[in-house]
């Protein structure tokens, strides 16, 4: 398979020829002392602007372009019908401060989605407010703190396994909690290490299951017992929920708090980095602390409940990323309970199949089966001077987005591969064949790769040494004014 990405020498907007600035009469509108006379935004033709961004889009790679096995990110097909629904004026052109009687459709959708997500996760109540998974973590930890404080306990230690996502550390750090990191044993939580870490200061243990190695933490009930015996709460990082739909649930595994990544499991588009949505579900004892407002139903219809005296307050403005919640809701109706279970079945089948086929090509540390993703290591080719980064860059030459690389940290030269359920065997076989070929290639070809992308290997060190974040910084650095 060969691939050539478009290359345009597309100038910056500011480098295009701009029509002259027109004067705008601001007298009587803006006081003279604060009136602005000049704005450095170019005046271009609409056609040129559309052409500019269309050319840029051709120098970008999405899941509609090709295979995108970016581990932990669940880059699966984003159905088109949910885009149509999200574009309805009844989604976009309603204001969150409208009278409740005028937004009954939106409130009903939120109410039902709260309920559906609680069912899927085996939880008792859900807030849809957090804008992303990391904000869900932040919310969940605040809920845990509020819960302990309500019982007269001040706890400030968050236990994390060494396989945890970076956001877990950052969310706990942002809240000023102490982090106790425990090592893994054979790719799973070391129960003894957890037992010695857990105690009176334990606020919560955050766990991703299956973990970031794609391995199911099969002694999860023992883990829950250890954490609960110490008085701590068990937090489920939902990044890998795509692996277990309809097979088990965080509630069934005795987790107390869970965040969902709707842009992963429920396939709202990733938007080049966002928006996403990170709802949080909890068991009954934590419900009083959920952010305000929650959506409730009474005899008069759906309404927003602000009367929650124990609430942690708000974690953002308004109620959540509504247009994403609409897409996730529609996706869940489309799949149904049976379809969601099939999602996980195929996601797990695809991951194990690719792992099976790659075993002779790359090392796969830790035995046993995986769930929706697996982590390979390129350390066996290190001897000939090839690193994971070279393999990743070379994959682009064949039209593949590279896997997540150098994570999790406990695997050397890691490639974290998540095929997702929407890929066919033909696509997976093609990827395996290319990867097999690349590993045997002349190292020089790999070092010089990628060759077929719109630019050659990008100098990230230079970018960080002298950060140029805008036209004005770049102009100044070039000696302009």
């Amino acid at each position, binding site marked *: 398979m060969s691939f050539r990405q478009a290359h345009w020498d597309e100038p910056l907007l500011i480098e295009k020829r701009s029509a002259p600035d027109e004067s705008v009469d601001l007298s009587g*509108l803006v006081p003279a002392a604060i009136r602005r006379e000049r704005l450095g935004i170019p005046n271009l033709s609409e056609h040129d602007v559309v052409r500019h961004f269309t050319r840029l889009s051709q120098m*970008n790679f999405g899941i509609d372009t090709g295979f995108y096995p970016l581990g932990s990110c669940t880059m699966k097909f984003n159905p088109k019908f949910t885009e149509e629904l999200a574009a309805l004026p009844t989604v976009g052109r309603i204001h969150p401060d409208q009278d409740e009687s005028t937004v009954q459709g939106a409130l009903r959708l939120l109410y039902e989605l709260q309920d559906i997500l609680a069912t899927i996760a085996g939880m008792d109540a859900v807030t849809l407010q957090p804008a992303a998974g990391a904000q869900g973590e932040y919310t969940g930890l605040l809920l845990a703190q509020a819960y302990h404080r309500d019982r007269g306990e001040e706890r400030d230690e968050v236990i994390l396994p060494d396989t945890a996502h970076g956001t877990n550390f950052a969310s706990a750090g942002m809240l000023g909690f102490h982090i106790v990191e425990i090592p893994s044993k054979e790719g799973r939580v070391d129960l003894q290490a957890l037992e010695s870490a857990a105690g009176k200061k334990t606020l919560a243990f955050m766990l991703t299951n299956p973990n970031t190695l794609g391995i199911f933490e099969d002694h999860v009930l023992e883990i829950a017992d250890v954490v609960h015996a110490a008085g701590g709460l068990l937090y489920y990082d939902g990044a890998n929920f795509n692996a277990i739909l309809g097979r088990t649930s965080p509630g069934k595994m005795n987790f107390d708090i869970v965040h969902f990544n709707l842009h992963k499991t429920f396939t709202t588009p990733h938007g080049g980095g966002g928006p996403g949505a990170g709802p949080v579900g909890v068991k009954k004892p934590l419900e009083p602390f959920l952010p305000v407002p929650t959506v409730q139903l009474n005899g008069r219809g759906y309404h927003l409940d602000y009367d929650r005296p124990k609430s942690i307050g708000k974690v953002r403005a308004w109620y959540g990323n509504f247009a994403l919640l609409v897409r996730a809701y529609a996706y869940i109706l489309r799949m149904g*309970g*049976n379809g969601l279970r099939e999602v996980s079945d195929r996601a797990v089948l695809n991951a194990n*199949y690719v792992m099976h086929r790659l075993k002779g090509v790359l090392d796969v540390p830790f035995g046993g089966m995986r769930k929706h993703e697996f982590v390979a290591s390129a350390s066996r080719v290190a001897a000939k001077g090839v690193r994971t980064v070279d393999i990743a860059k070379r994959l682009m030459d064949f039209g593949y987005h590279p896997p997540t690389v150098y994570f999790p940290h406990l695997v050397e030269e890691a490639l974290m591969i998540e095929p997702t359920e929407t890929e066919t065997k033909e696509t997976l076989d093609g990827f395996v064949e290319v990867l097999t070929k690349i590993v045997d290639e002349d190292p020089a070809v790999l070092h010089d790769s990628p060759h077929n992308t719109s630019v050659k290997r990008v100098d990230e060190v230079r970018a960080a040494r002298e950060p140029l974040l805008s036209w004005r*910084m770049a102009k100044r650095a070039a000696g302009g004014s």
Partner: protein
Amino acid sequence: MPSEEDEMLHAMGLRNIDDLFTDIPTAVRIPKLDLPDGLPEDAVVSRVTSMLAANRTVVDMPTFLGGGLYDHFIPASVRAITSRSEFYTSYTPYQPELSQGMLQALWEYQSLVCELTCMDGANTSMYDGSTALGEAARIAHRILSDDVCGVYVENPNFFGRFEEQLEDIRRLTKAPFVVGVNPIAQAVVRPPGDFGADIVIGEGQPLGSHANFGGPLLGIFACRQEHIRKMPGRVIGLTRDAAGQRAFCMTLQTREQHIRREKAMSNICTNEALLAVAAASYLSVLGGNGLRRVASENIRRAKELASAIDRIEAFTAPLFNGAHFNEFVVRSQKPYASVHKSLLAKGVHGGLSLGRHLPELENAALFTTTGRHAPDAIERLLKALREVR
């Protein structure tokens, strides 16, 4: 012919799909999800569309709400650009060689924000204006120089009034100075960079995105050069490729959660990048001239509407004198709740009731207008206000 699932299972020496789930202990297994079966695409579309039809949109009902989110006209080109699936089905541009388009678009967004605010650097987005302010407070705490952690002022402020004393406020303190802006208003007022702001934040939704019932939104975050290494979130930098050509990549990643972990400047990972692309498209389609026209038109219309409301006996507008952008406080003789009900009964949605936020303004509401209100919408509001009993 065996299905491809069977072929794959067979290749692994497995008999059925359940063989792949034997690592899940029986004690935690569930037989199935307790949800109805899936529906065909057209059934889902009808069901969701008809559920949402219970909403009354700002198209169905003249609506005078703002308070951070505004219904401005958005040229169709903006959606055409953000609907390019190469953009919206990609993720964070971790691999710059394959992602130059998104990287350049986001770098141009950062540049446009810097032009609007006269700051040096910007990130690619925070979740919304409110979380951008929270993050600004955290930076201010990190760079604080004396007892005061930071000073925050908005221009225009929550009541829609332009803040004319930024220069004086800056002189009062050496503490980090954070200014919140409405990005469209910046086209016609002197930018925060002129007044020594350290950090500028704002709600970027007016730049090419709908209100979306409150999300997704766009948190604007910009700062002076000396603070860029403390900035939260994804940041795109200009650099070169191995052939010496101009290229872009994510940079200053050592501030971020995936490298710095608990010492990270923020936990933000997924952000609002697509809305940043919408903002860059919106600003480019309008151009500096178009944006200044939109801004001045908003001021003019708000001024006219306030005068017209003020001429109705039972109302005072604007409650606070001075120049306003596109919203202003209206005080009524009666509690605003009854005014609100009366307007709604006539198919008009009034402004944001202020009593819940500020009890001393029980009888007041924040009314907003933009270029979107046709003359008959304004007339319906005025008529309904005159008829409030």
